[in-house]
């Protein structure tokens, strides 16, 4: 079983066999172990999750965590980071969670460049509610709520993030673990808002293993700071059932992140209150 020192908790794991969540958990664990060796304290990490299969990941890690609400990882993570800029805040979210229920938060987090890392477990289906379409399901997807197929194209989340001002945008695939690990590490180290759209299969409701295995490739990161190149890479795949699908860091730039450094000040708040009362008299 787990020793006290393990990053993995003793909570019973209830993901389906073959679920892509295992790979993401493993990759995150490896990155945290690496960073610990480099001097980052374990207690500086705070994991935030939404609601859905992905979200169980916070129970499975023996780390500070905030198991939040469906779609609401980002405002929670923003609050934590604003309270204490020294914490490393990582959001785990699902595609229904983040791209449907909580999409407004995502756009605003990218716009304000809050210094958090977002990992979207994008299996393009609702798993925990047993198989409905999400914003990234392909056109025509037949789910329990749309037996005749959906009549709307998927949302190209990469384009949306670039358009929202995200300073780090990447895509990974849960079966390419070393690549995923590298991207997670870079995202955590990025000063500012970092988003990774992780393609993962849902073993039970949307198993795209063969399609992703065949169609994904690691794109060049030589021009990673060029916005127009990033847009073109992002447009190569529109989340349809046609590949090829580029993976990698599409865009990375520096923009002053939130929260800005606060000066350490000793302020007697009660004294300040008395001064304000005087000023209003």
């Amino acid at each position: 079983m787990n020793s006290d020192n393990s990053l993995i908790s003793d909570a019973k794991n209830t993901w389906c066999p073959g679920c892509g969540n295992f790979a993401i958990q493993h990759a995150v664990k490896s990155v945290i172990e690496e960073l610990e060796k480099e001097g980052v304290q374990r207690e500086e990490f705070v994991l935030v999750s939404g609601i859905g299969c992905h979200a169980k990941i916070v129970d499975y890690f023996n780390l500070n965590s905030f198991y939040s609400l469906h779609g609401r990882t980002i405002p929670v993570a923003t609050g934590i980071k604003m309270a204490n800029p020294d914490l490393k805040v990582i959001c785990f979210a699902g595609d229904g969670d983040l791209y449907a229920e909580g999409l407004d938060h995502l756009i605003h987090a990218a716009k304000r460049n809050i210094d958090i890392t977002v990992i979207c477990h994008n299996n393009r289906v609702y798993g925990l509610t047993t198989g409905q379409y999400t914003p990234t399901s392909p056109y025509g997807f037949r789910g329990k709520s749309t037996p005749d197929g959906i009549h709307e194209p998927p949302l190209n989340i990469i384009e949306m993030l670039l358009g929202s001002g995200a300073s780090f945008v990447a895509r990974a695939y849960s079966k390419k673990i070393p690549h995923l690990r590298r991207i997670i590490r870079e995202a955590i180290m990025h000063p500012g808002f970092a988003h990774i759209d992780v393609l993962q299969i849902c073993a039970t409701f949307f198993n795209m293993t063969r399609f992703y295995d065949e169609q994904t490739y690691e794109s060049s990161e030589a021009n990673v700071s060029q916005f127009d190149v990033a847009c073109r890479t992002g447009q190569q795949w529109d989340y349809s059932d046609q590949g090829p699908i580029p993976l990698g860091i599409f865009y990375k730039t520096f923009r002053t992140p939130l929260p800005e450094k606060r000066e350490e000040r000793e302020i007697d708040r009660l004294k300040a209150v008395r001064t304000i009362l005087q000023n209003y008299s």
Partner: protein
Amino acid sequence: MTDFSVLIGGKAGDGISQAGQIIGSVFASMGYHVYQYTDYPSLIRGGHNFCIIRAADHPVTAFRSHVDVILAFDQQTVNFHSHRLVPDGEIIFDSNRAKAKGIGVSLASYVDRFQGLPIMGNTAMIGALSGYLGISWEVIEPVLTKKMTKKTEDNLKIARAAFDEILKKTSIDKTGENSRPFMSGNEWIGLGLLAGGLDAYVAYPMTPSSGVLHFLADVAKETDIIVYHPESEIAVILMAMGLAYAGKKTAIGTSGGGFCLMTEGLSFAGQAEIPVVIIVSQRTGPSTGLPTYTGQSDLLFVRHAGQGEFPRWIAAPATPSEAFRLSAMAVKIAWKFQIPAFILSDKSFSEGIFTGDINPGIPDNPVEVSPSFPYRRYEDAADGISPILAPPVHGEVIKVNSYTHDFRGITTEDPGMTVTMAMKRKKKNDALKDLIDNPENVCISGKKDATICIVCWGSVRGQVTEAANDLDVRIVSPLILEPFPIITFQNAMKGVTKLLVVEESANGQIDKILKEHGFFPDELLLRCDGRPSTVEELQEKIRRHI
């Protein structure tokens, strides 16, 4: 006894509210108790705005039907309000824009004489009023200098000219008492939050709560707090959850519609036991309703909002000192019990401007229990309250969870643990009940041994207290509405044979709470037009029922 009211009216954009505040500040600086009511429609330019500024030698938190002076910037003000004027009262009007029986003053002529901006017409009006009332220039000058930080010299010249050239009617003197702070209800609330130890305030603008946001944003640097305005009320409350988890004592503010969006976060706070102070300032509903008018119809909503069962604390202040004390207490209660603590205000209170105590009382810090290690966020205790720690704590893991969870914060569906956690929340509620059930939290006024009793809450108490002043009526007003301070309330009600309720709602709200506790009101005196009652209106209503 001095009790003097001025009505100032004009179009939105005339600077009516600011001029009203300066007039109020003049009276406050002379040592008077001052209350200002501002009435305005939901638009930026045009429309009809008016303020009533009431100065008295005793505390006032309501306005009367009649006024002593009307300051009219336009004809509408004359037409709408002349009937309020007392027989020996006076209308001072802008002779360029209105006609009336009274004193015409060409505001533009004063502005033009000193090449001022058109908005400075209201400076001329303030000067004219002060001259008419015989207030000494030594009183006016420092107030204008302090309040008009832009183009101060020009403003002073304009005010002085209008002051000198108007006929002096009376002579209002200083009271001999010190000047009191003159602030809006929202500002008193914000200041109380700060005194309670607030670290962060998050809000999305919504009338009539925005004043708290504006005030705290304005003083954020000098008080070293975080103030943030995010994308929605949903983000507001979840951001507050994140801030509080990471150790910042956080408050949020909104009105009914915004609070609707906050309810999932509220229930989260209940389940995850994360402290948060929530200011809800009511306006006339349902839905968008009357955005700039008042109401008391969200009491039951706030009391019951959120799925599931969890403890909460709701306080409704009626005076500036109560707003200060209860807001400070809200921070302490929220943090001690790790629950949502509400300040339930309304437009009348939030945007009313009041003089209050320069040294308002600050409640004591509640005793906090130290944690034991290894740390478990949801450790049970006799009173259900777990010691609270914020990350990072070396060697410890701090987990919070929206699911039913175990002592460590890990998800569980175990029936036994589900009951343990439900009982933990219930125990917190019991401990909270014991703490709040004391005479400090139920205000008794009027004739304390009268058998006819009026129950009211929040801003309405100011009107009721004055309206019932000459009547044989007892007034009982709980300051804390959840948990209900039942034993204190029962004591306050001893000997009552007739029970009336005064409230600003269409169906009655607090009467439902009273019935839960075995008190059955005989009459509900309700009002739902968004306008606060004047003392006389309410007095007549009460007389008909006693």
